[in-house]
């Protein structure tokens, strides 16, 4: 693990434990490799009352390189039904790919995901969900998404 990544994640973890953005809670952050945070959409939305979990996987290049972010899809949590979220939890969001910037952080990604869900108008999977899930690489970072929607 690069020292920048470790120092930066330690700092972020310290800040998150002191104060998390509304609707976001740390589920697990026992190392500087994998974190899980729960996110809940505040206010009026199609996902009222639902809690989702985001999984972050960091590599030594963080924050220069984006973390691998997916919605957890297991027996406890389900990936939200959203036009940019595949049923396996992969997220098609430009800030996790080409639009990533080192100044972004775990909290920033969580808040972006919250607003992405909050602005959702229709509960539906991406049109190519089945095909994508069948052939999806393990890490969404190995997928070249086409970001057709600038709102995320």
């Amino acid at each position, binding site marked *: 693990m690069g*020292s920048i990544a470790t*120092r930066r994640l330690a*700092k972020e973890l310290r800040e998150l434990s002191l104060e998390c953005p509304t609707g976001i809670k740390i589920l697990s952050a026992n190392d500087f490799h994998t974190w899980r945070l729960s996110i809940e959409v505040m206010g009026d939305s199609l996902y009222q009352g639902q809690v989702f979990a985001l999984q972050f996987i960091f590599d030594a*290049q963080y*924050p*220069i390189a984006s973390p691998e972010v997916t919605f957890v899809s297991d027996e406890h949590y389900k990936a939200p039904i959203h036009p940019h979220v595949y049923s396996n939890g992969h997220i098609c969001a430009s800030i996790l790919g080409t639009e990533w910037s*080192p*100044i972004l*952080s775990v909290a920033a990604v969580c808040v972006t995901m919250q607003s992405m869900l909050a602005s959702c108008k229709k509960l539906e999977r991406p049109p190519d969900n089945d095909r994508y899930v069948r052939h999806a690489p393990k890490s969404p970072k190995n997928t070249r998404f086409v970001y057709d929607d600038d709102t995320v």
Partner: protein
Amino acid sequence: MTSSSSSSFSLSYSYVEAVNPNLLCCICRTPFNVPATTKSCSHTFCWECICSAIAVLPQCPIDRSPLSLEDVSLASPIVRHMVSELPVYCTHRSLGCDHQCERQLLEHHLKDECLYEPLPCPERKCDQFIKRKDLKSHSHPDDHQSCTTCDLKFPDASHASGCPDAQVSCEHQPHGCRWTGRQADRPDHLERCPYEPLKEFFLMNSKRITALEAENQRLKDRLEELAFVFDRSRHDVHAMKYLLHPWFKLPANASHNPTTSSSTSSPTGTMPLNGTDFFPHSSSQPDEHDPFPEIFEGETQHTLFPPHRIPFQYPHLLPPDHTAPPTSISVAPLDLDGTLEHTFTSLRDSVVVLAKTVEHTGRRHDIALTTENVRVAEELAGVKAAVRGIRQQVHRIMMERVPGNEMGDKRMDPDMMVSGNPYLRSVLGSYPALTKSIPTTSVTKL
């Protein structure tokens, strides 16, 4: 961070007070370490942070404006002083050092004073790092061995990791460093060695070279494979050329209209491959450039491809006079200038015409045969009637000659009579079939 390196880049500071957020690098979220400012957009980051960010994506992380390393320079002295003077705890606070100082002085503290700074074995004899305060008590169980290089009977602490006088070369010698000297001087040299900062680069490069060599080998193998396939294909193409012989043409020439190629046109329409006449029409000599002379040598070539202008005329070119005697058929020469398909088509046409002619001739023969048969049958019927008349007469004569035998004579077999009569036997012997009754159906059948 228990770093013994003097490089400030890898030092992690623990700040005594909360730091002004304006002095935080937004990439690593800590106070600037070697602050660097972008010329184009005046954003400040740690030097290391912005360099690694640019290496991945050449744009400012904050405003995404294009950015290259040339656009980054050291931040203004004010910023540099502000971060340098931030109070920090000693890195070894967790080990017990209570020292606090300005950040810029921490390096000096660690290097010269901090009792908790781990130092390498002063005798270079073991790989341990010993806290400065424990150095005096550090010893090795086998401190008494003679050195072969400097003839020291009882080498002291200086021989911990080999004789300090031993001649060694720089560890970057493979990359070009010419330094050689005492082992003891090597650490000093490494600090100044121009190759030391490139260590990572060398490592990366040698990895890449290995990968490229492997790839090159794979490509070579593939190329060899393809060359083999190509050779085989070329061989096949040549064989095909020989098989097609005069009909082998470049596609452009092969597409000309088959109906216009007359049977006597000169071979101007053919364009042999390679610009040379690969299949000379006039010469029967094997081509000098022929890569497979042993396969199609002169004689074989003659039998396979006889001289091309045999007088040959297609039957359909004859006037449709079927009464003409067939012996005088002259055939048009084989058209070698058209496409193979065209040749096949005309050959097929000829076969069709021939088939028609054969059929016609056959029918004529049938008619002639039938007529002939009818005539023969009529003749036979006449002969049969005559024979019957003769037989009846003979019978009557016999009856008249043998009056006492009237009862048995009705049952007498005519055949027995004939065979019994030497005259009749000699007459009818030349017509053996006539001794039996002639089946009338065999006549009508014709």
